[in-house]
């Protein structure tokens, strides 16, 4: 050890030339460059996703770094080809131009012939197809319906589950923390050790028996119960129950925070005649802002981005955002423009929330990591 340090002591003269201040500045510059490169690499996939949601499948084999100009639609194009290019159904095209569905449009008819035959202005036809060039993905996603549900309904269910789960999880976790902080150390550790198992049990391991348990209580399988409000409600309820069952982290954070509150506070509250429920609601809750924010920023992405459980538990017509997108992919497996639009649409809400409240996220995550 001493030999090693002594060997280090006389540093090579050339390195000395920089001096400590110079070396620190060099380190700073290198660190900044690394940060910059990493930032670009991190943001690039998001940018590429944004651009690709506007690039039609036909043009996907070329590199686009910005939304491509819509190509001029030639009036000599054949209707059938356009349908394939823009992933449009012939019935949809007929509807858009007011052509009766009973009319038979040959796939090889050119647009000019269509315009002449049905007396439609050429510009209207051009505008229609150009609109589908850039915005095909977004239009199909936001206006279409799939397996009896729409994008907006799926998004609504996701938000519903997220809000209810977060609220209930926080309330129940505060109860757990309050109860645990009053127990003896031995009992506290007993409960806490059982909660710790949650961190090492992967969802995949208990997925199948967990589903079986819900099956006993709720009878979720097709055939046991007709599709209806009750069945759909129970399905959503099972997802919420999985989300609010409590984690090692929430238990730990709230127990630590509530143990730190002086016991005298509760004694004085009870002397003033407050019940333990009133104590929790009016005195403890306002003191727990920091751990609550911490739990929200950690659990929000997990619940919003949940895929496995909704994919298993929910009917296709009653599904949340991510399984909805997955089923859209199965349906339109060639329309990548739609797929990327859907992915971007699913990512965007949370990213916006994250950027708006980034201060809370950074603080909450660091607080959680120190506990974890």
């Amino acid at each position: 050890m001493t030999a090693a340090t002594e060997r280090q002591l006389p540093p090579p003269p050339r390195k000395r030339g920089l001096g400590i201040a110079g070396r620190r500045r060099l380190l700073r510059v290198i660190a900044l460059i690394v940060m910059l490169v990493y930032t670009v690499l991190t943001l690039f996939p998001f940018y590429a996703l944004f651009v690709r949601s506007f690039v039609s499948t036909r043009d996907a084999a070329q590199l686009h770094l910005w939304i491509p100009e819509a190509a001029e639609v030639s009036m000599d194009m054949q209707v059938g080809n356009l349908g394939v290019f823009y992933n449009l159904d012939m019935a949809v095209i007929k509807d858009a131009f007011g052509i009766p569905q009973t009319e038979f449009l040959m796939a090889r008819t050119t647009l000019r012939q269509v315009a002449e035959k049905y007396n439609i202005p050429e510009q209207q036809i051009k505008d229609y197809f150009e609109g589908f060039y850039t915005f095909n993905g977004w239009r199909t996603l936001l206006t279409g319906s799939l397996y009896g549900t729409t994008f907006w309904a799926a998004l609504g269910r996701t938000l519903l589950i997220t809000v209810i789960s977060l609220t209930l999880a926080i309330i129940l976790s505060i109860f757990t923390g309050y109860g645990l902080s009053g127990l003896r150390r031995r009992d506290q550790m007993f409960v806490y050790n059982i909660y710790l198992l949650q961190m090492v049990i992967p969802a995949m391991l208990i997925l199948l028996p967990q589903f079986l348990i819900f099956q006993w209580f709720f009878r979720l399988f097709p055939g046991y119960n007709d599709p209806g409000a009750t069945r759909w409600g129970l399905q959503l309820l099972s997802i919420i129950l999985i989300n609010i069952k409590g984690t090692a982290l929430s238990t730990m954070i709230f127990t630590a925070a509530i143990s730190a509150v002086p016991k005298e506070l509760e004694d004085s509250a009870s002397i003033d005649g407050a019940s333990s429920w009133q104590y929790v609601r009016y005195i403890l809750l306002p003191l727990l802002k920091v751990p609550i924010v911490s739990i929200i920023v950690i659990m929000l992405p997990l619940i919003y981005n949940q895929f496995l459980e909704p994919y298993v538990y929910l009917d296709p017509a009653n599904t949340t955002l991510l399984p909805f997108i997955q089923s859209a992919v199965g349906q339109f497996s060639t329309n990548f423009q739609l797929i990327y639009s859907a992915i971007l649409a699913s990512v965007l809400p949370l990213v916006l929330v994250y950027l708006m409240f980034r201060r809370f996220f950074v603080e909450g995550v660091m607080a959680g990591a120190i506990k974890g």
Partner: protein
Amino acid sequence: MTYTRIAQREGVEQNTTRKASVLERRRILRDWLFILPQFSLYVLLTIVPFIVAIPILFTDMASFTDPTVAPVGLRNFTALFTDPSVQADYFPALRRTLVFVVLNYTTVYIFGLTLALLMFEVGFRGGFFTIVYLPLMVSGLAVGYMAVMLFSRETGTANLLLRQLGLIQTPIDIYSPEGTAFILPLLVGWRYAGYNMAIFLSGLLSIPNETIEASIVDGANYWQRLWKVYFPQMLPAFILATTMCLIGSFAVFDELVAMGALYVNPEAKLLSILFFTYGFQVNRLAMGMTLAVITFVPLVILGVFLQRLQRRLQY
């Protein structure tokens, strides 16, 4: 006389302690009542599934609605050595999973540790933290589709860009065995970079400043400081990152679905996909559960061991 007084006083004391213990007991009961709602839910949904699963492992239950369930003894367990169809499913998936776990564990250090050290040396930067943590807001499913978008053979944006810049000659193909094996951990590591960075950074921040200053005064260079001062003191952080990565990578699912593991891309069929398929698609429920238990129970035991080790080091 004094004797009776003492006896009386003792009686009074006994009385008050009994009263206190009644109050105390009532308080403890109330505490348990507060714990109970979440705890019973937790036990029902996390611990009870193990108990429910045990009898099923010894039957031939094919699906959740199987009307005829017959006991088969240990056949599900021995199938791993005797049944070629199970072997053909399980062992390639196990191999792919192990490759993924190793590569993914590497990315924990490439992304998480490097970024944490960088942040530690130049001081905490909220803006950069925001960027690094951003991918964690993206669902696993979206990360999988982003991988497809960037590295499809013909249409991948990254492929097209790298070829335009002349950095690669032949495009990377995400559906090839090597492509799946390398790109998946890369993207998963990218996604969890912020999480791992937070773990390592909190480990670094918990090191007492005196030890770092002392090592600088003693003339330790950066490399020596890293190995002799930082790493030994942030051992709990290493163990936590290891536990999370190990459990997380064995259970990776969403990303694989996005890469077509359920239907078109056999290279993305890892163990979790296999359990899912057995349970919900090909009517081999009991077999799937058995494989899951065989695979995961050693992992859970290892995880518990790592957790105890971490806590012993921390306190």
